[in-house]
């Protein structure tokens, strides 16, 4: 129940609306109970022929009048209560997105996108249902149920008690079945996820399937998985399928009791025929609350579980946040220093150990090393996508964990290894995070990233839509868009993670030239597998298994004759051999 604080503000803020909605709902319920009364009077009078047409007309008009009033109040509660649940939905979704954006990279390593999406869609929907229909049904069930029972008691106490016999069975049965159904439902969802993943994989690997003639084989695999999904569904339905018929059955049992016992009592004149008919009407009113109780409990439980899950996310503190004594810095005055920096991922794999680097302002740092040696990890530490496990990184002599996160990040333009593009135009992607709107700057960034000539060939140029609904770009094109995005930001530190991995040699050289031209005015840190991209750096470090195994300038490292020199010669021989 601790998660309730999440929705409490909505209750407080909307309390007048909620109260009015509840008021409308109760009025509707009460007036609904009134109609069987009118019918009873009419029937009683008719039975004894103690009525004339005029009086009958009054009864009819009563019914219509009451119904008109009911109609207005119905509109009221629907609008207020269901509307409120929609506004809770809106609010929760906003805070979820807002909060998720503050969480650190390490969180997203642990959590799958699909799971988060499930929270954003299913859980929020469950909460909405619990708040909207759940609240309505609960109020309804309580008001209508107790009022119907009162009326029935008023007509005949003993008969009422008999009629209520099936009720506990219904509520208990609902509880029992709903637990079982929940478990089976989870299984269905699980096998649906399997199905989705299997299908996804086959479409993603369609070329292999086609090239290797695997169509039949894969179709039969999907067939098996799909059949499994059907079986899970059927198991669920064996339970759900008995659920509503069961509810109906028990409420009809009540009716049978009225017919039998009530009928006898009418014959023995213990109750009037009108009472008997009204009793049947009230029982009809009671059926819904009886069914609703089970359903409501279910709905609210599910909503609460969802609320707990959302709460777990919202109460997740970002691992990386401003320190209480965080300082603001606007400029980089001197060195970037790594002092004894070590870093382990959450699963305790040591990714970096004892890193010491001193990088002068305006200098270029090249980082090389085999895959998995910790290059990207090292880059991620600088904008604090991750925090060091031990040691410290200093900018202007201040530990970066004591610099305002926003200030730190606004010193850095960063190009990650994976070029991620958002759905939208190329322009929007390049302009991301800048207030600039001048086309000249856009063009200049695109030129520097060797992108301009490519974009110019697109019919819509920079307004070409990319992503899901747009055109399909090659890896190299995406990489260059990401690079242009980085170049749009004129910031003192530039970090490039393997910027030429997906472009051809010629384009790569153009890009390297751009980077070279920035040396001196910006501090540049560049990771590359292509050693010609780091050759010109003021300092090159070579990482292996998270340690710096050698460092120095190109000349120094060539003399050193270790990883750098070997790889460089290998690549050189490769090129020389071709040159001959």
């Amino acid at each position: 129940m601790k998660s309730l604080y999440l929705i409490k503000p909505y209750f407080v803020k909307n309390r007048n609306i909620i109260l009015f909605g509840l008021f409308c709902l109760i009025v509707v319920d009460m007036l609904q109970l009134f109609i069987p009364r009118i019918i009873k009077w009419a029937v009683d009078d008719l039975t004894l022929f103690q009525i004339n047409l005029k009086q009958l007309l009054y009864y009819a008009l009563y019914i219509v009048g009451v119904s008109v009033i009911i109609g207005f109040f119905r509109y009221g509660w629907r609008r207020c209560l269901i509307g409120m649940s929609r506004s809770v939905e809106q609010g929760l979704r906003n805070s979820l997105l807002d909060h998720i954006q503050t969480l650190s990279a390490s969180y997203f390593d642990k959590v799958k996108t699909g799971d988060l999406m499930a929270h954003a869609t299913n859980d929020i929907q469950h909460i909405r249902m619990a708040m909207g229909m759940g609240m309505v049904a609960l109020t309804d069930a309580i008001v209508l149920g107790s009022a119907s029972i009162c009326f029935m008691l008023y007509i005949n106490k003993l008969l009422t008690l008999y009629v209520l016999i099936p009720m506990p069975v219904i509520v208990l049965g609902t509880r029992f079945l709903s637990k079982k159904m929940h478990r089976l439902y989870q299984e269905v969802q699980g096998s649906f996820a399997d199905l989705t993943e299997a299908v996804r994989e086959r479409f993603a690997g369609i070329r292999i399937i086609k090239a290797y003639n695997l169509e039949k084989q894969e179709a039969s695999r999907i067939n098996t998985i799909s059949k499994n999904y059907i079986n899970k569904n059927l198991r669920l339905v064996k339970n759900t399928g008995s659920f509503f018929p069961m509810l109906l059955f028990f409420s009809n049992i009540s009716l049978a009791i009225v017919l039998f016992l009530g009928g006898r009592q009418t014959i023995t004149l213990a109750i009037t025929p009108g009472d008997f008919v009204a009793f049947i009407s009230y029982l009809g009113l009671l059926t819904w609350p009886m069914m609703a109780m089970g359903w409501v409990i279910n709905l609210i439980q599910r909503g609460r579980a969802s609320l707990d899950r959302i709460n777990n996310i919202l109460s997740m503190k970002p691992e990386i946040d401003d320190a209480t004594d965080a300082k603001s810095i606007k400029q980089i005055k001197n060195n970037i220093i790594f002092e004894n920096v070590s870093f382990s991922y959450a699963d305790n794999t040591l990714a970096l150990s004892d890193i010491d680097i001193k990088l002068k302002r305006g200098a270029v740092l090249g980082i090389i090393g085999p895959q998995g040696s910790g290059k990207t990890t090292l880059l991620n530490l600088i904008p604090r996508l991750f925090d060091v496990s031990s040691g410290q990184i200093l900018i202007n002599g201040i530990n970066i964990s004591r610099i305002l996160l926003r200030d730190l990040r606004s010193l850095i333009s960063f190009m990650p290894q994976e070029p991620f593009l958002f759905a939208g135009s190329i322009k929007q992607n390049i302009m991301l995070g800048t207030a600039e709107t001048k086309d000249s700057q856009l063009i200049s960034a695109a030129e520097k990233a060797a992108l301009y000539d490519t974009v110019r060939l697109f019919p819509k140029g920079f307004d070409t839509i990319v992503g899901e609904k747009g055109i399909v770009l090659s890896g190299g094109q995406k990489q260059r868009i990401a690079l242009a995005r980085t170049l749009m930001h004129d910031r003192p530190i530039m970090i490039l993670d393997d910027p030429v991995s997906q472009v051809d040699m010629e384009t790569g050289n153009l890009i390297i030239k751009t980077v070279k031209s920035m040396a001196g005015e910006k501090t540049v840190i560049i990771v590359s597998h292509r050693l010609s991209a780091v050759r010109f750096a003021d300092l090159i470090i070579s990482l292996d298994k998270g340690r710096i195994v050698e460092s120095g300038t190109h000349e120094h490292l060539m003399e050193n004759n270790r990883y750098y020199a070997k790889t460089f010669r290998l690549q050189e021989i490769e090129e020389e051999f071709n040159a001959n």
Partner: protein
Amino acid sequence: MRTDFGYFEEKQLGKPYDMKMLKRLYPFTRPYRLLVSGSIMLVVLIAFLDLSLPYVTKMAIDRYIVPQSASDMADASGSEIRNLKVNVLEPETREIISRYPDIFQISGQEAVIELKNLSQLSKNDLTELRKKDFNGLNIITAVFICIIIFSFVFNFLQVILMEYTGQMIMHDLRMRLFKHIQELSVSFFTKNPVGRLVTRTTNDIQNMHDLFTSVISFVFKDLFLLTGITLALLWINWKLALVSFSVLPFVVFASMYFSTSARDAFRTLRIKIAEINTRFAETIEGIKILQIFLHERENYLSFKKLNHEHYMASMQQIHVFAIFMPVIELLGSIALAVVIYYGGGSMLAGKISLGSLVAFISYLKMFFRPIRDIAEKYNILQNAMASAERIFLILDNQEKIQQPVADSGYKTPDLKKIQNIVMENVSFGYTEDEPVLKNISLEIHAGETIAIVGRTGSGKTSLINLILRFYDPTSGKITINGINIKDFELSSLRSKTAMIMQDPFLFSGTILDNIIQGQNNISRQNMEFILEASNCKKIIERLPDGLNTLLYEGGTSLSSGERQLISMARAFARNPDLIILDEATSYVDSETEEKVRQALYSLIKKRTSIIVAHRLSTVRHADRIMVINKGRIIETGTHDELMKKKGFYFKLNQLQLS
């Protein structure tokens, strides 16, 4: 219960859905028509049982609880009096009558007592007097209980039957769609993101669940109920029935008005939620970028705006419902009022019985329930139709590679061993006005290694796509052993080739499954050879489960180089004539790269191979190098020949040096 994860929906505003979609879905139900009709029959039975309940109640009232008497007569004041008739022939009855001579009027074999005077009788006498009514009530209650038991059983059976049928129909549709998509040419996949196609095969079909399982049968139930009630009402009292039907035109009008506005509201809501989901997914996937570029605020604001639009759309939907529901209820109440007034009047005039009136009221309530449910059914139908439309859009897509048609007069040629591959004047473009390959002519002999060199976008990958028939040339032809490759069955062409891609795509499953790909006849010895030749041995030995190690998304302990090696093993396992290799552009670490290279050499040895090279080091071993620029072959020859030529290839080599 079911929720929609469809966060890959299109933005477009669909047209209103008509009967066309249902018509197209109909054939999928045909194989199950027996089950469907069985289920419909059950539904009709259930509806019949439902309908019989008020009638049974009516019988209980009219026959036993408040019996009708034929000899009801007018008293002095002219208004009627309700009497109970008893049989004087029974000795017990006679005894009672003799005890209360004032209130019984005897005429012949019958005695009559006014209902209101019954209270003057002692309890025992009353019970005795109405013994027969008690017995009747017992029987009727038993009938009633039988009906509800049958109703329970039928309901349960119907749900199971319909679920099974619905699931099978969906399964068929899903398999049909999956197979269809799988058959579509590669060009289709470049235009449609995987996420969208997955949504079509999973979520969109799931969206039709309720249509197949509940809507179809319940439409019949509702129709039957409506007709049944109408007939029952007419039968009980046709005049009263006609009078109470006077509200029907208003109901029809309200429903039609509602369906129009509800459709619009639903559609906007669906589009908005799809957009929200897309945006949400994108935020998660691009979170690093958003954080590094300090773009969180802007992203939040635009999300908030979108979210608010969704809220407004949902309020509009609530508004529509909040009007429709009460209006229908009100019309129901008006019908009730009419029955009370007119029916009551008729009863006063002795034209109908009390039981009839009560039954009338019960039936009328049942009459309005299906109408109210229309709203819900409508929602389901709209969702299902929207999904159906998207599914049929794909099923209608015939972007397939044409297969030769084998019939009695024509047999597709067998492809035994590849002797030569010839391209004659081949041109190709992904779009009409942008040719990627222009007039390519070349000849490859068995056993040759051909390297294709050129800048990105020069058409290298397109060339190999044509040989595998992922695409067909726009003009010119490709022959293997002198036969146009269009004349081969796709499968026989592809069974002779193995392709290794830049991205070594592995399926989740064991490493073994990934290597053998369904060929279960690979001997142990052969397997050893495959692993050895592909340099996979070390990897397999390192893994505790060896070949049976499970690969799954995000859970692999294999580096990209190692995955590449496994894809090599996969190629070895097929023992193909022709190897087509799209070399990986990005560098893996040197050690693994060396292993990949070794594996590649043993793979292409003694085989024909076409290699799209990104590194010139791979090229120098080739028997022939073809340099492609802007879709044309501009140079062909060995490495040495081309270097001497000092042409494009030479320049390319120079560039890599600088």
